[in-house]
């Protein structure tokens, strides 16, 4: 890291104070405001803070925060301090806060918003970049994902020293990473196909079979992978099979863990040292947390877009196959949907989610847009009850387990009520 120029040091001091004030006054966790203040004072601050460190950037539509946490844990097995923006503040100010808060850390693992990756590559000159997935997100906020992929492609071509770790099973990711000089391909899987029926290169229809995906017209096809997620196991580049044994639930997290192991190994981390660290992660920025509240065990899951809902259903075990007497024993699930700015103000995306998988379990609905969700569930013939809030949901269910799937601001609201934990 070396010594920062004086202006930068002052900037980090002021920024750090702002962050502390934010936390003390309960306004937030301080991870954004500190960086915003710092950058006003020294606009080049991020680049200066990045100098001399080994930096990993993590991006994609879903799984950034969790994977950042996992990569941090895996690289942490090397025994040195790792700076990270653990709470999902993934724009420039969040990165500044993370780096200035850990000025001696030789490693930094930074979650980056997918729209800002090219700029953050320029600013931080990362050693490695992790590309998870690209799918439709909030319609009225996100740029078109094909454009995002194209800008990534251009950025990688301009940064040949950067090592890319990319999900081979996502056609948009594979196309974007294709211009990078050094790619480690990971067969991390892809469950949500609806944004990749069209070849990113030539626009023709993509075909899918047991071997993977390939374009019907041009030569774009799934690259062969060095690391593989195989059910519950990870297969590394040497062909060794190990059970992941994660505490985090669901297929998506196993996928994120394999990506984390792949990138950590680029820095010399040993899988047998890194994997135990991954297994210690039980919740990430409040997600997957179970809290006790008035006799119920409430598990909170975040789902921000259709692909995320698909993964959340996987975590709660919703398969639509429960019928008859078995349904009486299944835990109820509370769905919470808002449509504020960060959620995306249009709720049309609800119709890209298949709710039939909830058949057979009690469903409760809350959030600012619960009536939109009601119309959606009715169309899928899923019985439901509307409730005003998490406590009304708790009142409505028997003591025991309650799963909650919520989108962004609804999740934050519920988390604020039941208590922020990890």
């Amino acid at each position, binding site marked *: 890291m070396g010594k920062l120029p004086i202006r930068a040091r002052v900037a980090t001091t002021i920024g750090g104070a702002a962050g502390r004030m934010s936390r003390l006054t309960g306004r937030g966790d301080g991870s954004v405001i500190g960086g915003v203040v710092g950058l006003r004072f020294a606009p080049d601050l991020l680049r200066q803070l990045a100098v001399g460190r080994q930096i990993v950037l993590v991006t994609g539509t879903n799984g950034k925060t969790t994977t950042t946490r996992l990569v941090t844990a895996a690289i942490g097995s090397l025994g040195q301090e790792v700076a990270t923006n653990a709470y999902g503040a993934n724009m420039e100010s969040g990165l500044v806060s993370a780096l200035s808060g850990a000025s001696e850390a030789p490693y930094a693992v930074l979650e980056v918003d997918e729209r800002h990756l090219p700029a953050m590559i320029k600013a931080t000159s990362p050693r490695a970049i992790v590309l998870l997935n690209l799918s*439709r997100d909030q*319609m*009225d906020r996100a740029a*078109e*994902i*094909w*454009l995002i992929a194209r800008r990534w492609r251009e950025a990688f071509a301009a940064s040949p020293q950067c090592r890319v770790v990319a999900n081979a099973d996502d056609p948009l990711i594979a196309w974007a990473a294709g211009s990078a000089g050094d790619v480690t391909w990971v067969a991390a899987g892809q469950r949500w196909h*609806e944004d990749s*029926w*069209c070849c990113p290169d030539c*626009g*023709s*229809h993509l075909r899918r079979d047991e071997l993977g995906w390939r374009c*019907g017209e041009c030569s774009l096809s799934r690259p062969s992978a060095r690391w593989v997620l195989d059910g519950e196991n990870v297969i590394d580049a040497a062909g060794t099979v190990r059970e992941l044994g994660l505490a985090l639930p669901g297929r998506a997290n196993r996928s994120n863990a394999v990506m984390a192991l792949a990138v950590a190994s680029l820095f010399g981390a040993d899988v047998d040292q890194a994997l135990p660290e991954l297994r210690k992660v039980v919740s990430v920025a409040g997600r997957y947390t179970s809290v006790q509240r008035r006799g119920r065990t409430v598990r909170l899951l975040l789902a921000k877009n259709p692909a995320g809902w698909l993964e959340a259903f996987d975590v709660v075990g919703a398969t639509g196959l429960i019928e008859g007497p078995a349904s009486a024993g299944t835990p109820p699930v509370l769905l919470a949907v808002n449509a504020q700015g960060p959620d995306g*103000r*249009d*709720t*049309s*995306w*609800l*119709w*890209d989610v*298949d709710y*039939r998988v909830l058949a057979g379990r009690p469903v409760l609905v809350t959030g600012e847009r619960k*009536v*939109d969700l*009601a*119309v*959606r569930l*009715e*169309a899928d013939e899923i019985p439901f009850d509307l409730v005003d809030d998490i406590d009304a949901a708790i009142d409505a269910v028997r003591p025991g387990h309650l799963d909650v799937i919520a989108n962004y601001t609804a999740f934050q609201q519920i988390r604020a009520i039941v208590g922020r934990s990890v």
Partner: protein
Amino acid sequence: MPGEQVSSRPGRHAATDLDGLRVDIPNWSSPSGPEPSTRERRSGGGPSALRLIWIYPDLLSTYGDRGNLLMLTRRATLRGLRVESVGINSDQAVPRHGDVYLLGGGEDLPQILAAKRLRTDGGLAAAAANGAVIFAVCAGYQLVGEVFGGAQGEPVDGLGLLDIRSGRGDTRGVGEVVADVDPALGVDRLTGFENHQGVTSRGPGTKPLASVLRGVGNGDGTEGAYSGRILGTYLHGPALVRNPSLADLLLTWAAGSLPPLAPDYETWTNRLRSERLAAASA
């Protein structure tokens, strides 16, 4: 018919299953004998199914457009109509004898690809000539017109099925829309969400769908357009979920007059409409 419970939904799960969208189209796209008119097939609640066709969901389904297909299917099925709904991918032939065709929203390049392929294929134009109903949203709405704007705003040929011209506007229209529909159509006040940078002008033979009370729409105080049985709109929501009476208009065009649904089936859609209209005027 009113109040009749329809417990089985033939064709629904298979046809609208997220995986089932890749199903091959059934033989009825190439009939062996002379083709009766659409209206004839539907009258009297005869045994033939109402055929709903979703055009190129692999290119044009970015914004919950599946909801329009689901809502049309639901409202037809609840009236006791048998429904076959299917998605036709961009590498498949568009059947010429469907009853209602749906086109959804999409990004710039997929929109251009879709227009090219549909022009080459000719199936949608043939269906239009056969009197099929075409409901087109956003990118789909633009491409059934004469011309629309490409990725750099350059003019791209549309299908010429609707006399409208679209181009890239200066600002993006994003937000809740409220609009009063042409009284001739008998459709309730429109509510929806727009997200587009397009502006659309109409030729002499094409009427606006609605006049805008709140929002942008076409850019000239109107929203959407229709001519004959082709109707387009910029509205998401999805449009037919937010506006059940618009869904019923399309079904009536395809299947003849319909009985009203039992009030129980309208509780939630009505409540959603009231809430959205109130929110938009707040």
